[in-house]
């Protein structure tokens, strides 16, 4: 090989070495280019690891001091330096659950409307309007909740709920309480409004992937629209629909500003949905910049770590379920 090149370069030395040099240079540049781009992509992986790592490290003091009690104690006392996270954890779970309870049926209804019921000219404007709801910054939901919806709850909904649902046996106590307007139920409703657009857009998207032939066969057999949706569309897209619901759940768990405004930041444990409570994110938002002891700050970061781990798991499940559908689509 070397002899050959020497021979060639002896004949037309300039041209060959020039183009060889150029090829080598291009190759070198390409390798560097590729490495730089890959570095940026690996940064994304690194980012996730360092978020988990740094919040775990920041919360280590709280985990060490309180151990397992951090998760089971309801006492959150900044003055005496005792921090137990059960109330915010409970508040986060209850408000998110309420949000799903309202948002899932509503989103399902909107998705049916957008894919089966509405005339084609109406679909695009309504879908955009729902998307618009997703674009409103969460702090606006919070302000609206605090100044408009909270007072509305206190004046109209809460007394009605108190009188009617509060009188029921067994589940009555969870609907009893003073008509404050803020509390877990209000937070759950505001969260529901916030996650409706996310769940709706996933449901609409996956409902559209159902093969038309499948739906038309069902219609041809005499199925009603509802029967086609319930017996054909829903079974076909079940996994992805659950994925969309989990995506909404992930959003609800981590939502901060809207909840902070309407939850009331109370650290007392209360079974009633009408009472103020706190969520993981709202406690961090309310207290972090005023936390002066290391232990208080570490407890808040530890809460952040818990929140991150839980939302990571929920969102990972959501993505896995959604990706299974797209793979099915690909085949």
């Amino acid at each position, binding site marked *: 090989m070397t002899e050959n090149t020497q021979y060639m370069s002896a004949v037309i030395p300039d041209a060959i070495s020039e183009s060889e040099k150029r090829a080598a240079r*291009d190759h070198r*540049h*390409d390798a560097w280019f*590729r490495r730089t*781009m*890959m570095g*940026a*992509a*690996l940064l*994304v*992986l690194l*980012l*996730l690891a360092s*978020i988990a790592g*740094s*919040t775990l490290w*920041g919360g280590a003091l709280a985990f060490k001091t309180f151990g397992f009690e951090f998760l089971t104690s309801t006492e959150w006392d900044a003055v005496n330096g005792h921090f137990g996270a059960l109330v915010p954890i409970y508040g986060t779970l209850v408000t998110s659950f309420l949000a799903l309870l309202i948002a899932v*049926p*509503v989103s399902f*209804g*909107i998705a049916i*409307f957008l894919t*089966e019921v509405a005339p084609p000219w109406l679909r695009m404007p*309504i879908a*955009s309007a*729902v*998307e*618009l709801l997703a*674009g*409103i*910054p*969460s*702090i*606006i*939901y*919070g*302000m*609206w909740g*605090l*100044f408009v919806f909270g007072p509305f709850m206190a004046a109209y909904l809460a007394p009605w709920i108190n009188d009617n649902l509060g009188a029921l046996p067994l589940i009555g106590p969870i609907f009893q309480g003073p008509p404050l307007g803020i509390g877990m139920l209000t937070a759950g409703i505001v969260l529901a409004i916030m996650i*409706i657009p996310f769940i*709706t857009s996933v449901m609409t998207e996956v409902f559209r992937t159902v093969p038309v032939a499948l739906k038309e066969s069902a219609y041809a057999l005499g199925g*009603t629209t*509802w029967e086609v*949706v319930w017996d054909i569309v829903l079974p076909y897209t079940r996994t992805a629909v659950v994925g969309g619901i989990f995506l909404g759940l*992930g959003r609800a768990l*981590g939502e*901060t*500003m809207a909840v902070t405004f309407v939850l009331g930041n109370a650290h007392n444990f209360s079974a009633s949905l009408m009472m103020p409570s706190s969520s993981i*994110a709202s406690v*961090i*938002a309310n207290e*972090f910049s005023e936390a002066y002891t290391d232990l208080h700050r570490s407890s808040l*970061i530890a809460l*952040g770590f818990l*929140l*991150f781990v839980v*939302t990571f798991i929920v*969102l990972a499940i959501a*993505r896995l379920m959604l990706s299974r559908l797209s793979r099915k689509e690909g085949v």
Partner: protein
Amino acid sequence: MSKVDNENLYRMRALKNKLAMVLSCGATLFGLLWLVWILITTIVNGFQALNLRLFTDMTPPPGSEGGLANAFYGSILMSGIGLLIGTPIGLMAGIWLAEFARHTKLGNAVRFINDILLSAPSIVLGLFVYTAVILPVSAMTNHQVGFSAFAGALALALLVIPVVVRTTDEMLQLQPATMREAALALGVPQWKLTLQIVLRAARAGVVTGILLALARITGETAPLLFTAFGNQFWSGNLLKPIASIPVVIFQYAMSPFDDWHSLAWAGALIMTLFVLVLSLSSRLLLLRNRAS
């Protein structure tokens, strides 16, 4: 089955269907009701508080008049720096995913993690910047530098990255393979092909992603609370705390003072309009791109 039974069955099915359709229309109206209610509230309250002093005066102490000038400046400054840091990283990662790692295991892993970061709670990003940047810097500078505009911008950059990665990846993958092959056949090196041909062809879509990212960080409050913190006065110093629209809205809305409430509504109106116009126009751009 007798004829009566059959008729009953049909009637039941038709009734059930009608009920479902009514509920479905009801759900749609229910969803739109909130949108209208929230928008009208913001517009009515915001318009009452709008005036020119918003843009010239500083945030006031309670009981006196003032504007939001320092907060607007802080928001613009931090969003700008956040975009400047986040966009190149997002672009590069997106390029790698679309051009070099389309069906590889590592590429799919990055995509998966990026999708999770896309909806991860933003307050945790604030905590991350606090523990990973503010605490060490504060220790190194003997507590001279703590909460800072730069830390806030960094937190916003972390929100920009996943959005830009996602759209860049998607948009580049849409570009036809023939275009790449034509360029490669001419002997164009890969980096030139990617930056000057593929990226340029996908320019509109990529810009849309950046606009979406801007729309997202404009309204973000949680990650700024304990990174940029807030500042009552005008500040252009990147190493000092700085005011921002969402944080001022949060503080003023939670306060018991009426004039602070109206300033919060004015800020809310301007911010909401900006975000909605931005996200709507970028979505339209995206749709037109996908269609063509």
